């Protein structure tokens, strides 16, 4: 017990000398801290794109809601139903109902060109035709400006993300569909979900404008409960009149975001990994210089009877402290710079734009700190071992 205490006080004494010599080598020390902060900043920054994108996708679907596509279709773009099939789906068991009937919305999904506000170049913006139940089958749909479009009229409401990203999408603006101009009468939010990137109108109006007859591309349904999904799915897939694919909305959106999250995550890790290697070299440099500056001091302490283990531990502590400081600075900067930064990108699966916000999540920050700690450990270990290995006599002769 006393030995342990003694050991701790030895470590403390050496660490204190080390920390006190920091002003003397402030150049190298701040370079290390900033180097590690840079790694964490870039890591967290890049991954926050993927996290934000995934968050938007996951916010879009609750487990008690389902989407039905034609079988074989991996997105609404290539799916299609007639009116009869849509009705069969809406009447299937498991679908929730209210006074107006089943909570199911048969929808149409097309794309129109609108200029991005940031670049003034055309982008593919989703235009969705919905039925009255559309609001009930999605969570947290709220109008924040203007009013809902009137059923049967050539009017649209736009998601808040779309309104932010694309020119002309504000209450009072118009969009051109074919040769007609349709007024924008309202703006809605959907808890940050994909719907916020879309323009909505009445499905029948869109069918007419696009000469689609009485056809739809998907059916969105609210179920009695999350558990009712199996019943609903079985009923549809076993119905010989239908050839459909049934998914929980959450599954559907996870599938939709998979490619892009994979791309960003792969590249993000690769970049951060390379940067981390660079930072390890930087940290090694600093800690070697920390040891070099104090070779004589450490030699003296060891001559006085301080143990090798204490020398190593003290140097590791110093290195870790610097790394954690760097990691905290990097994480903090990433949070300030990137959290909630708005952006829009192409979702290849739906061939259209998705507006989202970068998300610097606690997990990402934690990940950043873990990387910083690893860099500090690796950067501190070798120099610490060198310091402990140095023959005492040689160390005393230094300088």
């Amino acid at each position, binding site marked *: 017990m006393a030995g342990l205490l003694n050991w701790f006080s030895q470590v403390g004494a050496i660490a204190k000398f080390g920390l006190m010599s920091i002003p003397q080598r402030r150049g190298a020390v701040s370079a290390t801290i900033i180097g590690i902060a840079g790694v964490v900043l870039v890591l967290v920054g890049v991954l926050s794109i993927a996290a934000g994108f995934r968050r938007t996708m996951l916010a879009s679907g609750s487990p008690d809601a389902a989407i039905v596509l034609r079988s*074989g279709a991996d997105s609404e773009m290539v799916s299609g139903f007639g009116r009869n099939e849509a009705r069969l789906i809406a009447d299937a068991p498991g679908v929730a109902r209210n006074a107006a009937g089943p909570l199911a919305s048969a929808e149409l999904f097309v794309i129109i*060109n609108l200029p991005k506000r940031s670049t003034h*170049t055309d982008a593919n913006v989703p235009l969705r035709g919905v039925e009255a139940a559309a609001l009930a089958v999605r969570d947290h749909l709220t109008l924040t400006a203007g009013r809902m479009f009137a059923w049967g009229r050539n009017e649209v409401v736009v998601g808040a993300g779309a309104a932010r990203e694309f020119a002309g999408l504000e209450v009072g603006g118009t969009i051109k569909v074919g040769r007609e101009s349709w007024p924008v009468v309202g703006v809605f939010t959907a808890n940050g979900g994909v719907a916020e990137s879309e323009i909505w109108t009445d499905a029948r109006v869109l069918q007419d404008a696009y000469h689609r007859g009485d056809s739809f591309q998907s059916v969105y349904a609210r179920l009695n409960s999350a558990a009712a999904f199996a019943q609903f799915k079985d009923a549809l897939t076993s119905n010989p009149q239908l050839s459909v694919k049934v998914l929980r909305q959450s599954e559907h959106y996870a599938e939709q975001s998979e490619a892009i999250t994979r*791309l960003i995550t792969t590249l993000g890790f690769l970049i951060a990994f390379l940067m981390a*290697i660079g930072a390890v070299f*930087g940290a090694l440099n600093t800690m070697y*210089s920390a040891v070099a500056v104090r070779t004589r001091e450490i030699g003296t302490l060891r001559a006085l009877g301080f143990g090798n283990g204490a020398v190593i531990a003290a140097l590791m502590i110093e290195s870790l402290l610097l790394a954690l400081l760097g990691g905290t600075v990097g994480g903090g900067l990433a949070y300030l710079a990137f959290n909630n930064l708005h952006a829009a990108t192409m979702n290849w699966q739906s061939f259209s734009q998705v507006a989202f916000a970068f998300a610097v999540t606690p997990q990402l920050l934690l990940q950043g700190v873990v990387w910083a700690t690893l860099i500090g450990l690796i950067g501190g270990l070798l120099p610490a071992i060198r310091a402990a290995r140095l023959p005492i006599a040689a160390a005393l002769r230094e300088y």
Partner: protein
Amino acid sequence: MRFLHLIWGNLTRKKLRTALTLLTVLVAFVLFGFLSAIRQALVGGVELAGADRLIVRHKVSIIQLLPVAYQARMERIPGVAAAVHQTWFGGIYQDPKNFFMQSPVVPAEFMAMYPEFILPPEQMRAWLATRTGAIVGRKTAERFHWKIGDRIPIMSPIWMRKTWEFDLVGIFDGRDKGTDTTALYFRYDYFDEVRQTQNWGQGLVGWYTIRVKDPAQAADTARRVDEEFANSPAETKTEPEGAFVQAWANQVGNITLIVAGILGAVFFTILLVTGSTMSQAVRERIGELGVLKAIGFTNGQVLGLVLAESCLLTVLGGGLGLGLAWLIIARGDPTGGLLPMFFLPGRDLLLGFGLSLALGLVTGLLPARQATRLRVADALRRL
């Protein structure tokens, strides 16, 4: 050059420190090379776009189809040399992850429009002779180990919802390093024939490419094309190929900005690490620099020595890093198909080299100034 051994001697004075700094710089330039390749893959198409080509698509969106009859009408418009069409096939080969583009085209006119696709003449003849024939770019052929004579099954969820089978009759190469050789092209007559049997979508195509007679008149020609189809059920939007590709890249997001941001952070970091190492190295030998000055070295020569040392370090690290990046990138797209044009352009190699030199100058400048400001008598006292 007569000072080279002195510079080299200084660099090897603390071998470990020099090696670590060199590796830091090296890593920064591997990253530079890597990000350059990513940027090239995402926005490089803009530079490769034909200056004499226009893209014509449906005004409302590219997913809406245009009548095939527009081709003849376009070719009658003054200023238009030729028009060809393509159609998004959206097919899946075995797994949706194996993404590459497919399109039906009219072989002879299509290959004339895109001289950057190089197809051996006998393969072209075979394509013209085979209704179900298809040609594919080198990259995709290598990716799936396809050979001429293979039958390629491709399931299209858009067209007929069936698995189409094509006979691979040719493999084309790219004329330029950045030419996209990932697409598969098959015959439009075969495509339309199958559509007729199902009575769905026949006579419709995705978009057109026009070659203009005079690139200087491209804007006028584009306006005339759009006027030709104004007030029809399928109005068009015509723009230069470069603008079309740029808009496409912008849809992905502002890649150049993101890449520049990351590189900025990386280089700032490296600058600090290298700079602090250099000034430490200079501080340690103030006395020696004083001796050199006593011997008769001028301030300029001392400045040159320190700058040469830092530049040698960064150019060495930068050169090795770029070389390593080049080797890694030559092994191909790390995402497995999402980045079809993944390579390190020569221009970026040069830029990287220039950057490494600049890095050496910037990091060396402060310590070098320290060294020259030093009065000889003071430096000697610090021995």
